[in-house]
């Protein structure tokens, strides 16, 4: 089973000042983080805490200002898969062609593998349809199936459910858990939703504004987890409570943080 080892040491990222004469923007102050093995890790934090910057550095879109980042499977660079905030499917290609578009191989094997992943997100029979014929939630399910189907060592997910309504998002979390339980990829999942993070993750990294690690919480529950499971709900309440303790001034502050 492929799995990645992510090693981040003293990472700092500073963007040049947006205006002439202004101050440079510190997106990430100092982050050191190790992720190893078949774990589902969420990165939680308010807007502007450097979540997306962290993901962009891991994917190679951005380069660190200082510090080191390595993402490896054994001795080779890890193969990455992506799920974005929106589905990002080619509208002029069918669902199946979209699945095959990102693969290294083609032919029968690729096709049957793509079909298998579509089936796991409940979208068998849609291969010949165009993305425009699917609802937003179904398109995002194709996006998730596509990311898993490239058999990545590390899967980067950037708030994949934030654009969907609550009911669709809940159903997609269930689909994601089915896929993850079956494949056990190393996942780095960025979200601003603590409740979602608790349901999905083995470990939650909380970032504070300014780009530092605020907390590192292990979640020790069996997968897959149902949102209505009392154990999940209790843990969600407990962790939300911890946030409140850290910010005694109350819910307003909590909303700012989470």
């Amino acid at each position, binding site marked *: 089973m492929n799995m990645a080892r992510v090693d981040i040491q003293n990472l700092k990222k500073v963007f040049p000042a947006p205006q002439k004469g202004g101050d440079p923007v510190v997106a990430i102050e100092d982050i050191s983080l190790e992720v190893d093995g078949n774990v589902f890790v969420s990165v939680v934090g308010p807007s502007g805490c450097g979540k997306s910057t962290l993901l962009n550095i891991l*994917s190679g*879109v951005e380069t660190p200002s200082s510090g080191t980042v390595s993402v490896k499977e054994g001795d080779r660079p890890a193969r*990455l*898969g*992506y799920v*974005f905030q*929106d589905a*990002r499917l*080619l*509208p*002029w*290609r069918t669902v199946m*062609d979209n699945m095959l*578009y*990102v693969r290294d191989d083609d032919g029968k094997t690729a096709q049957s593998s793509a079909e298998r992943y579509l089936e796991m997100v*409940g*979208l*068998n*029979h*849609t291969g010949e*349809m*165009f*993305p*425009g*014929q*699917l*609802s937003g939630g*179904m398109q995002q399910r194709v996006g998730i199936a596509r990311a898993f189907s*490239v058999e990545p060592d590390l899967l980067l997910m950037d708030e994949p459910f934030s654009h969907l309504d609550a009911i669709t998002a809940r159903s997609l979390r269930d689909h994601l858990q089915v896929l993850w339980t079956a494949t056990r990829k190393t996942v780095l999942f960025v979200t601003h939703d603590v409740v979602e993070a608790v349901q999905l993750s083995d470990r939650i990294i909380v970032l504070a504004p300014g780009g530092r690690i605020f907390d590192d919480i292990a979640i020790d529950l069996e997968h897959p987890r149902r949102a209505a499971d009392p154990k999940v709900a209790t843990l969600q309440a407990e962790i939300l409570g911890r946030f409140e303790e850290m910010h005694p001034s109350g819910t307003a502050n909590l909303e700012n943080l989470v």
Partner: protein
Amino acid sequence: MSSSSATLAPPVAGPGRVRQFLVTPIGAQLTAIVVFIILWQLVTVIAPRVPGPVSVAQFLWVEISGGSHGGVVTGEFWEHFAHTLRHFSLGLLIGFVPGLLIGVLIGSSRIAQALLNDTVLVLLTLPAFVWAFLTTMWFGVSWQAPVLTVAFASFPFVTINVAQGVRSITPELKNMSRAFDVPRRRQFRHLTLAAVTGYVFAGLRFAIIIGWNGILLSEWFAGQDGVGFRTRYWFDANRYRGFVGWVIVFIVFIIVLDRLILNRLQRRAFRWRDPVETDADQVKLEQVGG
């Protein structure tokens, strides 16, 4: 039992069947044509100088079959028609290739857009007859005038549409392709080319319709052969049934071309944008909970 009464009804008799046929789309189209021909015939009763449908049909038969129009004049349909098609294709090619290239340029570069967009818009608003006049002034009676009229009239329609197609390739889709390490050749085929194809067909369709108008005018003013020239020939000869006959040829050609080829090509290339939802699709959507 009431639900099956329709199938139990006795077979529809003759007049009922005609009525059923008339309300189908094809029946309605045929009705419109018949009504038009009847109205046309009525107009000739009021205005005797207007040639009627029968005399125009007779003229066209002589012209197409190469028979005698009386005197030394014989039918020359195919010569003129082929001549126009050759010039038309050449003009379309001369308008299409730069239209495609400049469309890609405008669609992909903001500077190119700022530089060229207004010029293309001005060209877009110029009616084809302006090009017919201008090219006749520049080249006189020549083959260049009709060819360039088609080229100038069609060029901006290709450009505008291709530019729109290129703009539909969003940075998000490009980033996605890069993130998944999709090879450049596959990106070109499935991202760039596939995005632009539908718009190219749409542009080509407009270009053909506009260019076809342009060539009639240009050949009328500056042609020595061709559909426009022959139309004017009969007009100048005071033979109005010849004039009307050629105008009909002109119209029928573009309608048939559009209905049978261009419209279908465009619809096929834009299948992803305006999919015809079939019953099968609906069943699929219900199966997957759409």
